[in-house]
């Protein structure tokens, strides 16, 4: 098993008295596309900033490419491609100027590759950055992150503000340019339907901790909505992994993770109700269950 590209252990961070990260644990396998998911303001950007040494955590360890984020800050930044959320660049510079300027900070800058990228990403060399459209701006930011051929790329909400076509195109570039080269891509988003086709793995951040981390397709298969037929108070009797309970017509709808035959039997036995249906959920529903699900153990029908 090769070294993970990114490793986070017990990360804690507070902005003043507001504790944003409360013990985040995360492992990003090398060469994977990893989707980092969470509602707005959940601390995704904070986590990413800590990875790059832009913020100092209260506790915990972060390693990127085997390097410590705090102790080897500059080395991490030199070896990682970073695209900030809604990245504003120097508006007065021309595209070719900012590209050359950026290159002076990275010893591994590949000028030939960068020129190819400028054409591939359809960026006008002579235009000033302030005249670029949002889509062009995002692609430029991506280019600047890739110019030194990093093995690990960290993108913070890279498709923010892009229209659906531009978003799809952007992700296409990420797959085409990076996955083919075995580059590890760690990107954050709050749109699960966007992450699903692209990511190998997904981690969901809620209330400062990771509540779920899994392979994308396994996540879909393991979370199900179970309909129980019953009347009055239905008690689930301590079945594990309940994400959400609600009433659905005459039935109780229990959204549960890691669903299996064993769980099925346990549920029927403990609640004393018959299982009427087992529904598949789309990823948005799964995400919702993790984030705003009602974690109770009883439903009234």
């Amino acid at each position: 098993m090769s070294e993970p590209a990114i490793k986070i252990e017990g990360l804690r961070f507070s902005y003043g008295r507001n504790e944003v990260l409360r013990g985040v644990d995360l492992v990003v396998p090398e060469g994977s596309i990893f989707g980092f998911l969470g509602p707005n303001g959940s601390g995704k950007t904070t986590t990413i900033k800590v990875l790059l040494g832009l913020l100092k955590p209260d506790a915990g360890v972060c390693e990127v490419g085997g390097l410590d984020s705090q102790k080897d800050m500059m080395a991490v930044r030199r070896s990682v491609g970073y695209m900030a959320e809604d990245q504003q660049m120097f508006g007065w510079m021309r595209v070719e100027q900012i590209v050359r300027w950026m290159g002076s900070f990275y010893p591994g800058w590949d000028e030939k590759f960068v020129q190819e990228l400028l054409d591939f990403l359809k960026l006008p060399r002579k235009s000033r950055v302030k005249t670029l459209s949002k889509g062009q701006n995002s692609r430029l930011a991506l280019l600047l992150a890739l110019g030194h051929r990093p093995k690990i790329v960290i993108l913070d909400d890279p498709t923010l503000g892009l229209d659906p076509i531009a978003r799809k195109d952007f992700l296409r570039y990420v797959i085409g340019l990076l996955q083919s080269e075995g580059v590890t891509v760690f990107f954050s988003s709050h749109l699960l339907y966007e992450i699903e086709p692209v990511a190998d793995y997904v981690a969901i951040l809620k209330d400062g901790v990771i509540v779920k981390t899994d392979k994308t397709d396994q996540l879909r298969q393991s979370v199900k909505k179970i309909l129980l037929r019953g009347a009055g108070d239905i008690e689930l009797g301590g079945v594990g992994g309940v994400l959400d309970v609600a009433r659905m017509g005459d039935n109780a709808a229990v959204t549960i993770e890691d669903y299996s035959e064993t769980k099925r039997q346990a549920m029927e036995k403990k609640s004393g109700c018959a299982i009427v249906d087992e529904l598949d959920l789309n990823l948005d529903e799964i995400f919702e269950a993790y984030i705003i699900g009602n974690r109770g153990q009883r439903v009234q029908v």
Partner: protein
Amino acid sequence: MPIYRQIIDQIRYQIATGALKEGDQVPSVRQLADKLAVNQNTILKVYNQLCTEKVLRVERGSGTFVASDRQSIPVAERKKIVAKLLRDAAVQAIHLDVSIEQMKEQLEKEYEAIKLLWKQERSER
């Protein structure tokens, strides 16, 4: 429906209607991933499954092609695939109060239409 299943269904549909014919080369994993803006591993999964089902075959060094002898899938297996689809359709029909006669009529219509498309594609070749 999971994305890889959607893609599998799409490829099967293209083969059924003749848009993809026996011996045709399908795009490489990279090409298809780029076209659909989908993770390459997902495409890999799709191709692997279709290869196992003998719908596609891989030729080392040349690429991936539509398999020429789909009859190599055992009859029972083929029937099972179709049976599942029919069961889903039956459930829906009952829910929507569509009679079995109407269903049969519709099924014949659809079947013939696809077959026709397929014949057209073939003759154009």
